[in-house]
């Protein structure tokens, strides 16, 4: 229950769409979404597979709480092998698409093979068909969604699509649904592009798609959960008002805002690009960047930013398609497009963010790669001739231009589309790439926040803030305050966060609920929705099992403990200013302890005992 118990298997090579029952034994061990799809991927593919080979599979997956009245119950994930990292990729998205897939009667869609020509998948309840997408190839996400809805004359169809970035295999291409929600990281969009799959369009009207195990308990649990979210300062006020952008000034003041490719740790322009700035009236047209906040399906937090640009801004002067409202910058995007390369023009960031949504690429990796390119430029390793224009730190025009080029795969955009690791390697300075496992850091500095450094180094999908959000204890004091520079207790805390996150990511809920919710808030919701025993203990075991399964996959793919590292800059160059001045990462102290609490060998391999205990 809560699962539809149906899997749609789409063979892009033969064009066949078949139905099979969900493996319920696995569902009991891995819950859903991230965990369950990874189990399928691990069981069906060789971890050594080339991410762009037809042998790589790609799975769209929902959780048992997706498409329910549980607050934020609308998430889905895309699981595949990531081309940016060569590791497991699991990108999570909100919007309305996931719930629609569930209403159509599917827990997951497994794509295998690659199509000879561009296609899109149309799912209408139990019916799935691959349709010709040659007319959509070369089109943006926005055009694709509009064209599909129009052609099928159904504005209620939900669409997840790749833009030109995915077609061009930008290594951090995203899959964008509902125009500005994205399965953003690790290049899942490029895998979709490699399969010649332009979009997945869903319309779900089934009323019997799934059932709640105990409706009465479910409403009691979800209503209690909603009250907690409403009463909490972060989820009830901070996020709706400022979105994740609430963090910009906080992190900057704390001295953990990576700036100019992590050369600096505080950004003088932070005020101009943060949550408060989005509310301020622009001198140019007297209007604020932010129009309102928007929610994903079922979300009672509503952290989404909906922005409208200054119509007179240089970047969009003759481009009416950017003058309407659309998804505004979230914190990570504002940081990556702004602080990471020293740009403090909020309108320019908004424009670049629109482009990321419009053509489907990850603003974090893109912005961070631009930051690296700027550093290479300043060092004289990259020239104006190669780029086509000047690219010093702080160049708004440069950042904007690169966003445009990356979106369409032209000029130097092609190189930017490879990501920071490949860029810096190409120009002889791999050490300048601010990445882990080739994936760019998000908006917290691993020197300023020691726990985050460890989280980055050990994240199964490369540098990522969403695998174990140590910002919670280190900045917000959730569930307890931990000093940013302390190392004590952090490996254990991180493990707990990672395991809990794996549970949340497998449930259909949004991770942001955990600003307010603990496992004791989430557990009753899962228990009431799903058949089986879902005690807190068991859920944490599920989370740990998922983490270890992902780890095994990465080891199988050829990664080792040596890849659990941070760039030399974070290990050696002390933070220059602010409260964390002088700090470097103490990863070498924390990592061995982390392996230990994980039950892994000193080389970072799960011991036989751990494997046995978890059954992986």
């Amino acid at each position, binding site marked *: 229950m809560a699962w539809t118990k149906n899997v749609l298997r789409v063979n892009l090579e033969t064009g066949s769409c078949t139905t099979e029952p969900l493996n319920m034994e696995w569902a009991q061990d891995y819950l859903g979404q991230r965990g369950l799809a990874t189990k399928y991927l691990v069981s069906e593919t060789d971890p050594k597979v080339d991410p762009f080979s037809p042998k790589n599979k790609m799975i769209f997956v929902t959780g048992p709480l997706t*498409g*329910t*009245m549980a*607050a934020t119950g609308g998430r889905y994930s895309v699981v595949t092998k990531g081309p940016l990292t060569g590791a497991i990729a699991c990108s999570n998205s909100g919007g*309305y698409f996931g*719930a629609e897939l569930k*209403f159509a009667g599917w827990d997951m869609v497994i794509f295998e093979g690659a199509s000879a020509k561009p296609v899109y998948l149309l799912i209408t309840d139990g019916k799935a068909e691959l349709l010709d997408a040659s007319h959509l190839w070369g089109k943006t996400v926005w055009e694709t969604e509009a064209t599909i809805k129009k052609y099928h004359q159904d504005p*209620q169809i939900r669409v997840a699509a790749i833009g030109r970035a995915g077609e061009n295999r930008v290594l951090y291409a995203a899959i964008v649904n509902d*125009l500005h929600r994205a399965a953003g990281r690790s290049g899942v969009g490029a895998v979709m592009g490699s399969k010649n799959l332009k979009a997945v369009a869903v319309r*779900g*009207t*089934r*009323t*019997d*798609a799934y059932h709640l195990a105990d*409706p009465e308990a479910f409403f009691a649990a979800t209503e209690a959960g*909603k009250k907690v979210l*409403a009463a909490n300062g972060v989820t009830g006020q901070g996020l*709706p008002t400022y979105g994740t952008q609430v963090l910009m000034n906080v992190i900057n003041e704390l001295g953990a805002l990576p700036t100019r490719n992590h050369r600096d740790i505080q950004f003088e322009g932070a005020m101009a690009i943060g949550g408060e700035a989005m509310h301020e009236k622009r001198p140019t047209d007297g209007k604020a960047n932010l*129009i*309102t*906040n*928007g*929610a*994903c*399906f*079922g*979300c*009672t937090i*509503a952290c*989404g930013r*909906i*922005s*409208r640009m200054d119509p007179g801004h240089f970047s969009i002067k003759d481009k009416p398609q950017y003058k*309407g*409202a*659309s998804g505004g910058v979230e914190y990570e995007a504002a940081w990556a497009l702004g602080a990471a390369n020293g740009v403090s023009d909020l309108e320019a960031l908004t424009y670049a963010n629109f482009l990321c949504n419009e053509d489907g690429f990850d603003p974090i990796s893109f912005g961070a790669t631009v930051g690296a390119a700027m550093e290479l430029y300043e060092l004289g390793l990259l020239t104006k001739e190669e780029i086509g224009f000047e690219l010093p730190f702080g160049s708004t025009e440069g950042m904007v231009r690169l966003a445009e080029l990356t979106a369409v795969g032209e000029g130097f955009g092609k190189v930017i589309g490879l990501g920071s690791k490949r860029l810096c390697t190409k120009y002889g300075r791999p050490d300048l790439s601010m990445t882990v496992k080739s994936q760019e850091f998000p908006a917290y500095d691993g020197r300023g926040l020691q726990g985050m450094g460890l989280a980055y180094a050990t994240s199964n999908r490369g540098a990522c803030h969403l695998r174990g959000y140590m910002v919670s204890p280190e900045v917000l004091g959730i569930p307890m305050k931990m000093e940013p520079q302390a190392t004590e207790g952090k490996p254990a805390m991180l493990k707990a966060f990672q395991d809990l996150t794996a549970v949340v990511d497998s449930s259909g809920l949004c991770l942001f609920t955990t600003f307010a919710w603990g496992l004791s808030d989430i557990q009753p919701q899962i228990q009431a929705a799903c058949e089986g025993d879902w005690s807190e203990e068991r859920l944490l075991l599920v989370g740990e099992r998922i983490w270890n399964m992902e780890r095994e996959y990465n080891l199988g793919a050829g990664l080792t403990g040596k890849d659990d590292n941070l760039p030399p800059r974070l290990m050696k160059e002390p933070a220059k200013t602010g409260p964390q001045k002088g700090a470097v990462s103490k990863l070498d102290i924390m990592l061995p302890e982390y392996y230990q609490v994980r039950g892994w060998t000193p080389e970072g391999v799960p011991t036989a005992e751990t494997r046995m205990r978890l059954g992986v």
Partner: protein
Amino acid sequence: MQKSLHIDPNKCTGCLQCEMACAWENYRTFTIAKSRIKVFSFHHEGRFVPYTCTQCDEAWCMTACPVDAIQLDPVTGAKIVLEPTCVGCKVCTIACPFGTINYVAQTGKVQKCDLCDGAPACAKACPTAAITYVDADWTGLDKMRQWAGKTDTNPATV
């Protein structure tokens, strides 16, 4: 005084809790295709407008019905579809000039808001109080104008 649904689109975030609540209340499913209230998204304007039947005085749907399948609830003032009687001819769906009574292919019947017997599930579920159930002396077209005045979706008026 009879109550009516009052909708303030400015408060709506597009979370669709109301749609799920409506579908659940009436059909024990979260599938929002079964909801009688619809949140229309105005992407270009960055706005969400929840919309359902205003229980208008004219009740075009009710008078057009050839088989007497839509009835007035004397307590709430709602016009209620009697599913067993409805033959699915859809004439009410074109008679209502607001587009708020719709055909449901699965059941072969039409559906519209019935005010949940005076305890609207959508209003209860809305986390932002964009939907409330309030005493109101304005009805029908005036109700529409009340909402619409706040929708601010026509650039001509912005």
